[in-house]
């Protein structure tokens, strides 16, 4: 058909969209600002709910974008974005022009910067880490504290930067609860002698087999789920983390010291996405993610004709949903070309 589509963002959504577009016979340019494609999935260890290896997904995506019709441009980002009546003209930072008949925005998400919740002590106390830091430890195969010792008690704090008016994010990031359950199980797998605690406001297990994973966490792995929002953390005299939390279901304050505290950082609109929004005039919603034209039946369409959204740049979603969203974006692109042709 000779049409050229530019996909901005080489993560899960971007790669799936690019691969699907190539299958449908389009020319694709996949623009990725990092030196490697793969986005966040490069950093994951095992994926919920079944704890399969993330590299399997990565391999699938890499294979999908191996095609003569896809030009992968890593280490590249968009500096200028012009819309015309019959197409788009995008310029990369080294001046290369990409003339596009349609654009798919797949800029993904960034994790909430946990230093902003100062009372949890990330960056201040040695053994307060984020879920991303923990995942990196899993990939290395070693979970250790800052002094190299193995932690005996690990606590997970849910909703860091999500559902929190003080952090500026009212929304729920959807995936952190199941991630916390998964990581709690993985800690117990790696350190069978450890005791693991999960401090939550709610347990949001809204995906296929998520609730079953929660059951497994309790039944098989003996993880302790305590309902209470951790208000602050401090360091005790022997470098243990002391948390202040009320066990709301027991109705009494809890006194507890932990070796390690893991903060479940939420998802936010990515910096790259914000840049594209400023360049292109794409609208953002109140939650600062991109605003789809319609939440129910036009979730891939944007306020600019010919620009489509794929993946977590519109809202928190898991990998299954991301891949589906990318495929439906491609279907919208095809629709768009058919309508403009006729």
């Amino acid at each position: 058909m000779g049409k050229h589509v530019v996909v901005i963002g080489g993560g899960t959504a971007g790669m799936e969209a690019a691969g699907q577009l190539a299958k449908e016979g389009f020319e694709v340019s996949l623009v990725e600002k990092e030196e490697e494609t793969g986005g966040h999935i490069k950093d994951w260890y095992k994926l919920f709910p079944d704890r399969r290896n993330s590299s399997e997904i990565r391999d699938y995506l890499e294979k999908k974008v191996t095609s003569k019709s896809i030009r992968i441009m890593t280490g590249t980002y968009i500096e200028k974005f012009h819309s015309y009546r019959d197409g788009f003209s995008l310029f990369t930072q080294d001046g290369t022009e990409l003339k596009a008949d349609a654009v798919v925005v797949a800029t993904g998400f960034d994790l909430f910067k946990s230093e902003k919740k100062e009372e949890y002590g990330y960056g201040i106390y040695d053994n307060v880490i984020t879920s991303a830091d923990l995942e990196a430890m899993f990939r290395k195969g070693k979970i250790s504290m800052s002094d190299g010792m193995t932690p005996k008690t690990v606590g997970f704090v849910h909703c860091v930067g999500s559902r929190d008016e003080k952090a500026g994010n009212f929304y729920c990031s959807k995936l952190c609860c199941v991630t916390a359950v998964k990581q709690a199980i993985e800690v117990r797998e790696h350190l069978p002698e450890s005791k693991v605690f999960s401090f939550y406001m709610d347990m949001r297990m809204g995906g296929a087999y998520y609730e079953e994973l929660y059951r497994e966490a309790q039944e098989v792995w003996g993880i302790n789920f305590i309902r209470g929002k951790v208000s602050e953390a401090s360091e005790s005299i022997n470098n243990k983390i002391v948390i202040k939390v009320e066990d709301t279901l027991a109705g009494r304050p809890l006194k507890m010291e932990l070796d390690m505290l893991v903060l479940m950082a939420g998802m936010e609109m990515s910096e790259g996405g914000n840049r594209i929004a400023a360049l292109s005039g794409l609208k953002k919603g109140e939650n600062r993610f991109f605003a789809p034209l319609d939440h129910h039946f036009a979730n891939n369409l944007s306020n600019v004709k010919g620009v489509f959204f794929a993946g977590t740049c519109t809202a928190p979603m898991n990998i299954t949903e991301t891949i589906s969203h990318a495929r439906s974006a491609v279907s919208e692109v095809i629709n768009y070309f058919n309508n403009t042709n006729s």
Partner: protein
Amino acid sequence: MDKFGFAISKGRQIDWEANNRKVADFIRENEPSFKLCIACGGCTATCTAGKFTEFSLRELNILIHRGENTKPMNDLKKCMLCGKCTLVCPRGVNTRNVVFSARKAFQIFGDDAF
């Protein structure tokens, strides 16, 4: 509760119909954010007074919502109004004003609150 439904031990039950929720209504009018509480317990966790005595703002708020006013009336004076709870609340409830308004409500209504 005898024709159909189930019997609950009378001493334990929260009798929704019998309870007087005047105080809750007063607070809701003076501090609309009172409606936003999800009882996460962050306020109780950080509370200055809670370090020294039994005092759970989360529990007192829930009880006021339900119209169970005895414990709130007795316990609310323990609050030092320090404001840490307001700074921690993820829903943005103005907890300091909730305590302030609750104390005022009990002062105004007196026995009428029960």
